[in-house]
């Protein structure tokens, strides 16, 4: 099980989202620490999306569409619907939200990100089908649009959701 290096690799950088309905596409977010990546995949419409959130909340008028969960989640979900996804039948998976360093007396941003994501999804009647959240290891995640598989690579292992 390895991460794909294909020409149809779309990268979600920090505060960015990527979407595709191409079965060849792989959507990737590299080096997640405290950040959290949300993958949405509709198996009927064969549409996948990946968003790379940084923080639970913040001002709406920022340069990155999905920097904050409170303002960016709707942006991402609306964009997925515009792409043809039906959220009620889509599979949602999340990874990241680790505690990498003790900063500022342990702000535990990763934990807050995980809680905010789950709470924000619940508010919209949605829930995660699978997740790999917390811990203290960095992760790279890759969504295969053809199958909905979410590969998760850390320094010591590769797993799949």
């Amino acid at each position, binding site marked *: 099980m390895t991460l794909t290096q294909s020409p149809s690799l779309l990268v979600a950088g920090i505060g960015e989202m990527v979407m595709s309905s191409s079965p060849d596409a792989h959507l990737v977010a590299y080096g997640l*620490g405290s950040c959290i990546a949300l993958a949405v995949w509709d198996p009927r419409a064969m549409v996948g999306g990946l968003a790379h959130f940084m923080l639970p909340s913040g001002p709406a008028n920022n340069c990155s569409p999905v920097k904050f969960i409170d303002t960016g989640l709707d942006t991402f979900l609306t964009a997925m619907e515009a792409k043809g996804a039906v959220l009620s039948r889509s599979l949602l998976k999340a990874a990241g939200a*680790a505690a990498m*360093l003790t900063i500022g007396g342990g702000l535990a941003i990763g934990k807050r990100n995980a809680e905010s994501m789950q709470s924000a999804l619940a508010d919209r009647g949605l829930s995660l089908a699978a997740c790999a959240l917390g811990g203290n290891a960095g992760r790279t995640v890759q969504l295969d649009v053809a199958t909905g598989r979410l590969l998760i690579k850390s320094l010591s292992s590769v797993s799949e959701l």
Partner: protein
Amino acid sequence: MALTLSEAGQNIVAGTFGRAMKRAGEALGAMSGQVIEVQAPLLRRCTAADVLTMAGGPESIVLAVYVGITGSLQGHALLLFSPADAHRLAQILLTGLLGPGELPMDKTADILAYDELELSALQEAGNVTISAFLNELGMHLHEPVQPTPPQVIVEMAGAVLDAVLLDLVSDADQVLAAKTTFSEGGRAIECTMFVLPRDDSLRVLLDALGAIGI
């Protein structure tokens, strides 16, 4: 309000950070007993994504020594080594401290594994280097700038840096990133140092340096 500096202001900041980086390199050199060359620092106002690019990309594996900056200047400082160079520096430091006969045996071929002595030596190298940098800035601020205890982590650069960047970008879309590379003997040890001040205390520093309004 976005921070903007005139060319003269930018030169003042670059000069101060350059001197501070040089002191940091000298401190690392004194600790390792080597002559450390210090590149002119790259100083950029940039996005979080740009910082990751400056670190070699989010997936590059690094040994990072993290030190928080507190006191009159607040922010974060990081020393990033490739895994191989971190081992090399640790061996140089331990040879100086313990003598070659006392070095721990190399028990594993895993380049990502470090024993306690190596981690301790690298932690101290980060502490000494970053403290030297902060002392130079503290002289301009006329108030102490204090480092937090160093933390060492072996991880993907993106995962290390995002913890730091999250703390900086909640209010600002851009950060001031100062980066330099230290090297010894042309290549034996290469290390990248990042200094990322918080936006609010950056203004205090720029004011103290006389870099604003000129």
